[in-house]
């Protein structure tokens, strides 16, 4: 490999006075004015978080449909795969790379019990009819449960609500209407937010995996996100709620999701992360990559950076 000879030592150039700390102090002053000005005039975004209670109150049909899917084990989170469970719905692979499967289940989530049956079991302590419905459901065969849930899901397709009452057409759905009616009552009271947060059985809790997965399976949270232009196809990673800038520095990461072959692949996330990993590594290793490291020499933007130096160099050459 041909090596370029090292450039001249900076210490051997003509020098000028330079006050490093004064420059830092001036920069601090300018940034302080900018930061305080922007904070005072524009404040910062803070749209209240969604809650399961709000979801159940504002969109009971979507809430009950989601809860029914959870009970049937048919939701995305119920079938997700690692790190939550042994499903396969969200496993992504590329070539010989199966990292999601290699790492396995580390945040166990049991949608059927955590999201529906366990909260209802607690609520049944003061509701004998709910206790009976639960016993009927859990004692039934798997085929019977599936048939009840399928019938109820079909009936939900024509369910109506007046804002307070959910009316689901009658069907051969056994105890499922009673279970879902109670799930809705618990959710509307705010109880399900707390029950899902404490579903791991600990008093102190900062892990929102269960409630956020449950909310992610429904349409309420994504509806609010769409209103705020936060969805992937809205370049949502770069946006914030309101009219504030988001993580604009992730524009390249977001761009891959909009173009083929990424946006047509079922392994889109893994492909995008691998691509960004390779590009990040290339950025780190720019000084050692022929071509990439030579571009600044080929495109003379450096002549703008050191305009005075090159003007003097040209004058000396005359």
């Amino acid at each position, binding site marked *: 490999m041909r090596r370029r000879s090292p450039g001249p030592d*900076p*210490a051997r150039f003509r020098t000028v006075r330079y006050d490093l700390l004064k420059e830092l102090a001036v920069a601090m002053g300018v940034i302080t004015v900018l930061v305080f000005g*922007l904070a005072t005039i524009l404040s910062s975004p803070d749209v209240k978080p969604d809650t399961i209670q709000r979801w159940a109150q504002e969109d009971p049909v979507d809430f009950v449909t989601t809860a029914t899917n959870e009970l049937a084990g048919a939701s995305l989170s119920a079938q997700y795969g690692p790190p939550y469970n042994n499903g396969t719905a969200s496993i992504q692979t590329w070539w010989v790379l199966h*990292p999601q499967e290699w790492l396995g289940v580390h945040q166990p989530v049991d949608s059927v019990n955590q999201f529906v049956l366990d909260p209802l079991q607690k609520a049944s302590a003061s509701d004998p009819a709910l206790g009976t419905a639960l016993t009927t459901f859990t004692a039934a065969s798997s085929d019977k449960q599936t048939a009840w849930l399928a019938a109820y899901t079909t009936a939900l397709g024509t369910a109506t609500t007046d804002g307070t009452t959910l009316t689901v057409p009658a069907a051969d759905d056994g105890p499922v209407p009673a279970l879902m009616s109670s799930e809705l009552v618990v959710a509307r009271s705010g109880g399900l937010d707390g029950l899902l947060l404490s579903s791991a059985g600990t008093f102190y809790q900062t892990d*929102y995996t269960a409630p956020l997965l449950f909310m992610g399976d429904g349409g309420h*949270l994504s509806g609010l996100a769409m209103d705020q232009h936060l969805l992937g196809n809205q370049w949502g990673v770069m946006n914030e709620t309101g009219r504030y800038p988001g993580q*604009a520095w992730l524009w390249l990461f977001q761009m891959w999701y909009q173009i083929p072959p990424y946006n047509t692949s079922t392994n889109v996330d893994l492909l995008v992360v691998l691509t960004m990993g390779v590009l990040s590594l290339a950025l780190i290793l720019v000084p050692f990559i022929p071509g990439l*490291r030579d571009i600044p020499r080929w495109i003379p933007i*450096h002549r703008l950076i050191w305009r005075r130096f090159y003007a003097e160099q040209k004058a000396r050459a005359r």
Partner: protein
Amino acid sequence: MITNERHSDTEPTSASSSVGPKAGGWTGAAARWLERRLPIGKLLPTRQPYYIGSWVYVFGVVTIAALAWVIASGVILAFFGPQWWHESATGRFFNSLHFWSIQLFFIFMVLHLWGQYWAAGWRDGRAPTWMIGVVIFLISIITAFTGYISQQNLDAQWIAVNAKDAINATGAGAFFNPLNFGQMYGLHVMLLPIAVTLLVVLHVIQVRLRGVVAPIGATDADLVDGGTVETSP
């Protein structure tokens, strides 16, 4: 290490005043290494090559100034806890300082990165400086990501729910769970900012020790041997 040797009133107290090149044990050796590798004249210079009179050198120092406000506002927010800024007007103001200083930090860091790219700032043994700089950029992105998730609002909820798939797809979801507020908050206020700050200090030391890279195409003909001094007006 403390030994039982008697202290002499005439014993040298600094490596530089020690007798002999190997005096002072490990401490003396460390002091001599630091004096040799980090001379104060290079760390805090009062003169620089004349070619640094360019706008491109401003971006690095303003990035550091923005980082100072990111850290200062972040420390206040962390002290009062993650709920505070949602309930208090003062807290909201400090969150706004944090929000805008982060935006400025990234804007100037990216400008600094581009400036150094077009200046080919890695030349003449400065590749480690460039590499550490890019690592700072990448860790800053992760730090900001954990910050957005720690906001405890709608944006935080959606980013966590949406981002989990990309993280899980790589297998990293096994140990990095964006739905776990406690983990994200801990990383955001402690480990990641410490990493960014230490790497920025290392980056600045690297810049100071090597000096500012000479212009592309500079030759010995551009030098003034002996460092003839130009007095600033």
